[in-house]
């Protein structure tokens, strides 16, 4: 049986600020993961990562991260990706401060 594909999002760090960004359906980078494009097809996900990797003057280190659909949009499944949507736990810095 083929391995089931878990949904993904394309994520990276913004080139200038270095913070987490996610790729949207209309090819922009968002700082709100819920606005990212949820990729449910493996071939399409690989293609989107390739396209994102070409945008070297906007981001660094793109990769596919596991995500799950929610009412509000894609959400992280792993705690590391969850931290990336918020910021550190010892200070109210990073994305949690911008909300």
């Amino acid at each position, binding site marked *: 049986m083929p391995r089931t594909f878990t949904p993904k999002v394309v994520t990276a760090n913004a080139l200038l600020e270095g*913070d987490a960004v996610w790729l949207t359906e209309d090819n922009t980078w968002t700082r709100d993961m819920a606005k990212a494009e949820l990729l449910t097809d493996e071939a399409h996900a690989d293609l989107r990562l390739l396209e994102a990797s070409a945008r070297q003057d906007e981001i660094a280190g793109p990769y596919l991260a596991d995500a799950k659909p929610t009412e509000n949009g894609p959400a992280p499944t792993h705690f590391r990706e969850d*931290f*990336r949507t918020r910021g550190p736990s010892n200070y109210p810095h990073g994305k949690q401060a911008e909300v």
Partner: protein
Amino acid sequence: MYSYNDFDAAFVAERNKQFRAQVQRRIDGSLTEDEFKPLRLMNGLYLQLHAYMLRVAIPYGTLNAAQMDQLAFIADKFDKGYGHFTTRQNIQYNWPKLTEVPDILDALAEVEMHALQTSGNTIRNVTADHFAGAAADEIADPRPIAELLRQWSTDHPEFQFLPRKFKIAVTGSPNDRAVTRAHDIGLRMVRNDAGENGFEVIVGGGLGRTPMVGKVIRDFLPVADLLAYVEAIVSVYNLLGRRDNKYKARIKITVHENGLETIRDMVESRFEQIKPGFTGFDQDLLAQIEHAFAPPAFKTAGTEGYEAARLANPAFRSWTDTNLTAHKNDDYAIVSVSIKKHGNTPGDATSDQMRALAQIARDYGHDELRISHEQNVILPHVHKSDLPAIYAALRAADLATANIGLVSDIIACPGMDYCALATARSIPVAQQIATRFDELKVEHDVGPLKIKISGCINACGHHHVGHIGILGLDRAGVENYQITLGGDGTEDTHIGERAGPGFAYDEIVPAIERLVLGYLDLRTDPEETFIQTFRRLGAEPFKAILYPEKEAQNAA
């Protein structure tokens, strides 16, 4: 303190200029991230979970007040008003923007600081005993050697592409406060029967995924031969070290796989080969450097005021009991300023605190500060009569916590709150342990105890050499914490042994509480420290405390 000569200043300025151009080419798209990454790492710039991170070297942990003031200025202007002191005597800024990093490097150069070789597969910032030049037990100040090594290793053409990073630590005291046995090369100053100073050379130590205690490759190396011998070691490693597997690339694996004897033979042979090239210029340079590290002009004054203040103020007395170390001048003391206030992030100082420390160093400390690998700040030369005033100034800056060497004086790496390599968080675990023991009001009763926390197997938090080590892992998508027991980072270096199954995030602090309170019942008397009790009894009674359910099953 060493001051840059024209060569140093011109070199750093040139490197900063190069990096500014590299950053520009990265931003305009001429360089890809793959091309830029090795260039930024050579200049201490990482890309972490939430932002870039700049790691600034504080060579052998020594800095003056003007430098500390500049670190505060950088924290305010380019970061979020604080900096993080690390276990390698560096300071890390967690929020710089790529466009501003060249300006930060120029600001550092203004006070003779840099971020060179704080990353990458090169010889890293050389670390030293944080009490160097002050400790009562010291044979000689190890910092001139550390500075010599810094100059020799900076941009050394043979050693810019080593198989892996390379860390050197040096101490001038028999009591090892620099964890020399956990470094690629450890240098311990010793005195031979003829009364000459030399070094015991230790090689192949390291923590990380394969922790190893360093082995003695030369039991007495004359100071004059040091640079050639160290160069011989790194040279042999450069040829022999594995480049096929990142996890087997450190010199500890090279020594382990080839055997100490083989490595020693190769090093000695290489040493004989290159030694004639060291015609004395290194010794001339060392003599100049030693001159720069001449001790300050110690003042002569009575210490009655200090004794009186101790009697009058119990809080001051408690602070002097924990935070002072014997100085080689009887009228002086070494002050360890705790950067571990209960509940705060270990090693984080605000810009206001940095400025306060700089001012105290200027007013009372012969303009000297140190950063310890235990993430505290040291005032190495303080006359005892000035201690009450220093304590008052530290209190005003919220820096007077009396907990050096106690449960809450925890080493913690940044962990998954910042680090891209981390597998779990460390900082909140440290914060919660410190807060909990402060609530219990038992840490002075518990006495000396070193807890060290790493947020991944790379062991930046030195967990292997903690009396209690905590290693944060990712177990099936959940944070999980393994405890190691009985580690020791002193001259009797020991790697701690794993206690058993890991604990969940919400179980780890109660487990540590159980363990530490359980020790109080095991010790023979209040004088027997945690590590002494562990050595007397072994791990079993501690495991029984950690895993009561298993103990109950065994009894049934």
